[in-house]
């Protein structure tokens, strides 16, 4: 593993386009596995590669933005890295004892009829914290979320921004070595977003940590990423350390055909003249 936190080697994952056929394959695969027979790694009718032969390594200090059009396999790849999906083929090597915290949907597990404080405890448990760990970090969570004034209010009465801040603050309090963020990076109002960017930047420098985040927003890539992965139809087609280059390539060569010249020009201008 040398100095890498994570090594992804030729990882592929297939899914089925049709619901009933997918269930049928599910029955077949469960049955084969139960009796000890291998499950096919080849595509069957109606199946497609959600990610195909993806390989890359993650070093400490890296903040990697994963970009790509809808359905390009970004979320599937993040779920495989988080251990939620098993890859169809390929392997992932984690540095020994690597702690991974993934966020795929900030609202998962929140209970509207319970207060902010009760939901912080619940969310901490969902992110795998122990009671003692939460006790140590509760002040940080309250402080970071800026929700002290609303701790006794039911979360059902929170705005969407407040709910997102609550979950996001608990997630970063888990202090993972690898933080996986899918479409939930830097939430809340603009001040809170800036705070999140600054925090993540410092966070990866403090210890041997890295962040992998999925986004299609130019601002979120430019503000934070020191490496960009571009995905298309399940494949990793570019791995660049210059966010500007990667985004320009993405806009010109990947999604450019689907945009009007005016929109394309506007986006490129945003990249070239980006300021925090």
């Amino acid at each position, binding site marked *: 593993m040398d100095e890498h936190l994570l090594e992804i080697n030729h990882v592929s994952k297939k*899914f089925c386009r049709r619901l009933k056929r997918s269930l049928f394959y599910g029955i077949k695969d469960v049955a084969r596995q139960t009796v000890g027979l291998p499950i096919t790694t080849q595509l069957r009718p109606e199946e497609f590669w959600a990610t195909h032969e993806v390989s890359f390594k993650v070093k400490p200090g890296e903040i990697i933005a994963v970009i790509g059009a809808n359905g390009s396999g970004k979320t599937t790849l993040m779920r495989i890295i988080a251990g939620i999906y098993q890859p169809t083929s390929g392997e992932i090597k984690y540095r020994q004892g690597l702690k991974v915290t993934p966020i795929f949907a900030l609202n998962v597990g929140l209970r509207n009829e319970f207060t902010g404080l009760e939901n912080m405890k619940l969310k901490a448990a969902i992110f795998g914290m122990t009671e003692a760990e939460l006790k140590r970090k509760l002040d940080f969570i309250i402080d970071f979320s800026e929700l002290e004034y609303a701790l006794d209010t039911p979360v059902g009465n929170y705005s969407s921004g407040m709910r997102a801040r609550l979950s996001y603050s608990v997630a970063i309090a888990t202090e993972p070595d690898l933080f996986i963020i899918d479409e939930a990076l830097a939430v809340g109002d603009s001040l809170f977003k800036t705070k999140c960017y600054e925090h993540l930047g410092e966070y990866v420098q403090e210890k041997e940590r890295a962040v992998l985040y999925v986004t299609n927003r130019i601002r979120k890539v430019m503000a934070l990423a020191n490496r960009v992965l571009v995905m298309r139809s399940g494949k990793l087609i570019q791995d660049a350390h210059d966010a500007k280059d990667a985004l320009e390539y993405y806009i010109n060569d990947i999604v450019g055909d689907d945009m009007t010249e005016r929109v394309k020009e506007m986006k490129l201008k945003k990249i070239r003249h980006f300021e925090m």
Partner: protein
Amino acid sequence: MWKFFRSIRSWWYLVKQLTQVEIIGMYKKSFLGMAWMFILPILAVIIWVVLNGAGVVNPGETDIPYPAYVLLSTSIWGFFLEAYKSTSNLLTKNGRMLIMSEVPFEPLLMQKIVVHLINFIIPFVVNIIVLLAFGVRFSALALLFPISLVPLLMLGMALGMVVAIFRIIMVDVANLIDEGMKLLMFLTPIVYTPKITSNWLEVIVNYNPLTYLIGFSRDLLTSGTFYMPLQYLVFSGISFILMALSFRFLLKSSSIVLERLINN
């Protein structure tokens, strides 16, 4: 099974939090609150007393008053059925959490069992008070009653864990098994006694493991005797083996079926 206990240990705080949230959440919006945990079993007792008084039901000969017999039997049956229900809904009810976070299914399964036990204990204490009022007296062996329920819990979970997988990829089979559970209640001596005279029903009752698993617990509590101890032990052993096999099946198959939850 070791994986199960290791996982529970590292996710214990989640088990605790989810249990609190589920129990408190059930009554959070109700003005009577947790009092419902006592009101519902008292209402159930009243219904059976009224039905018995009206002579609507004719159960055959029982050692203890009929309402007390039915009350106890249905409680024990409910213990088995709820173990099945909560386990069989494990993946579908927690699908979002399982797909959107790193939480494995083991702590969620444990939480379901803990909530199930809490939901069983309170009404059961009410039932014991009613049994005392009906003149039923308990022997010292009745203290073994909670342990005698373990095989029923294991059998309910064993069935539930298999159906949890079916509920995603073979919904028709899961629905059939759910309906089968309703039928199973009438093929088990719960609202009638094992001393039945119908030939075909007698054969089924004799081969039904629940006859022994429920009968043993019931007699242990009410008369301090062991009902068919050999059959009880054999079916207890089978229940344990089935639970271990079902857990392995769930563990191995969960990743294959969970990725199909998105489609559901």
